[in-house]
């Protein structure tokens, strides 16, 4: 593996371990960056355990640096290091440290945007510039957000540990939300930018780590299953000229069989545990979509009924209505959609438009498409909706 690959794979793990050793994220990052700078100079080829090498070097560089400085953080960190002086020297990144870091980065006392940026920077090893490009925001904004969040972690005393059993369900939910949002940000932008794909892959990688670290948390397994089964369909989701292809019209031979097999296995693991939650149910729905030559809609509807029970949100209800249309017909589905209140959400009028089309109520369908087109945030989705609308008007 080249140095870039090692950096991406090891940065987060090494910073997590150094944060425990130094008691401060900022000092840990500096030390790890120092160590990688040394690696660039010294490595002809990577040592057998590059993470261990980086951690040991970073620790030694940190001790040197702290001896030269006399700020209060430096004295604090030095005290911590002395405290651990009898620890074995040749240690690699510790897996528990990463788990601590995930919970620190996704702490509810941080703003949701800060949680995402910190997670991508500290766990994913993404550069500030990469995060900025992926979210289409200025670099300075991401930089300031991260600096502020790290300052709050230090000043407010956000702990660096896995929460107690009593707090774990809520805190884990916050971690899962961050990973889910990172994935979604990459997935809903279908503009084909490589960096957006990176966000999906990064979310999958972190979800995989989390599921490995918490194998007894069914929702962590469920999230990984959901992301894998969604990611597996990505190659078929955009057509040759960049247009959006809906599930029913996707070329299933383009789906990633390996990811689907892995996702199905995770869903079976969840079913055996029988402690369903929102991510497990969404994974199960996606397992049905990717099982066999066509979707078993009654089964999808049954799963949506369960999901609505666990997560009674209008967005879940809207998705459930799509399954209702397949099972009970568009008229019943339309009645369900018309009860929903989702201001500004383009998929509500888009779903109405589709149901109205199927009912032959063309004029109303055109109006609903117009409403959806005006609300759609993303060019690919807008083009898709415009094409659907055009079909209606040329058929007249």
């Amino acid at each position: 593996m080249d140095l870039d690959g090692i950096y991406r794979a090891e940065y987060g793990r090494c910073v997590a371990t150094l944060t425990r050793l130094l008691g401060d994220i900022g000092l840990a990052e500096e030390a790890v960056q120092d160590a990688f700078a040394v690696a660039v100079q010294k490595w002809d080829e990577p040592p057998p355990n590059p993470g261990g090498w980086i951690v040991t070097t970073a620790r030694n560089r940190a001790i040197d640096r702290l001896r030269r400085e006399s700020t209060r953080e430096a004295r604090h960190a030095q005290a911590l290091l002395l405290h651990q002086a009898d620890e074995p020297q040749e240690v690699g990144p510790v897996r528990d440290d990463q788990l601590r870091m995930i919970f620190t980065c996704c702490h509810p006392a941080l703003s949701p945007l800060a949680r995402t940026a910190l997670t991508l920077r500290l766990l994913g090893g993404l550069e500030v510039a990469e995060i900025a490009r992926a979210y289409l925001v200025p670099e300075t904004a991401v930089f300031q957000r991260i600096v502020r969040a790290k300052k709050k972690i230090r000043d407010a005393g956000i702990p660096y540990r896995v929460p107690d059993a009593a707090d774990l369900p809520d805190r884990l939910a916050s971690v899962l939300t961050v990973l889910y949002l990172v994935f979604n940000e990459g997935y809903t932008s279908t503009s084909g930018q490589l960096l957006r794909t990176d966000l999906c892959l990064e979310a999958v990688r972190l979800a995989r780590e989390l599921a490995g670290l918490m194998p007894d948390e069914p929702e962590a397994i469920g999230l990984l299953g959901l992301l894998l089964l969604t990611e597996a369909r990505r190659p078929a989701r955009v057509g040759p000229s960049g247009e959006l292809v809906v599930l029913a019209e996707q070329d299933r031979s383009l789906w990633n069989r390996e990811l689907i097999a892995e996702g199905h296995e995770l869903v079976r693991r969840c079913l055996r545990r029988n402690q369903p939650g929102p991510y497990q149910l969404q994974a199960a729905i996606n397992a049905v979509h990717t099982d066999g030559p066509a979707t078993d809609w009654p089964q999808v509807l049954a799963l949506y009924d369960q999901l609505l029970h666990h997560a009674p949100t209008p967005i879940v209800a809207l998705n459930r209505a799509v399954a209702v249309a397949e099972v009970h017909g568009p008229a019943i589905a339309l009645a369900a959609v018309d009860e929903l209140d989702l201001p500004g959400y383009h998929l509500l009028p888009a779903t109405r438009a589709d149901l109205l089309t199927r009912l032959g109520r063309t004029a109303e369908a055109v109006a609903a498409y117009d409403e959806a087109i005006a609300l759609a945030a993303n060019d690919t989705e807008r083009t898709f909706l415009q094409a659907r609308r055009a079909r209606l008007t040329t058929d007249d």
Partner: protein
Amino acid sequence: MKKYLLAVQFDESAPWPQEEELQAQMARTDEVTAEMRQAGSWVFVGGLLASHATTVVRPGNGTTTVTDGPFAETKEQLGGFWVIQCDDLDQALAWAEKCALACGSPIEVRPFVDAQWG
């Protein structure tokens, strides 16, 4: 140990609770304070009178001016506060949750400047 201020954000524009509810709130709040003492987290507690009783003294040009009322005429005023000591924010938030449920008002959690390493 870090020290945290748990400040009660009291909405003065909201209707005053019934006497019975007020007594219950105060009893619940006292219970939380007792629990804090028992856990060794308690440093100080105080309830404050409303903003009608507040006066501000402002410095300027080497002298001061005295005005009636709080700093800002907003609905939310400082209604009272606890000072606690604990290991980290998670412990402080756990106390703040109990305080919020007991007194029925939002609680702002602020760390004190850490003097330990200063």
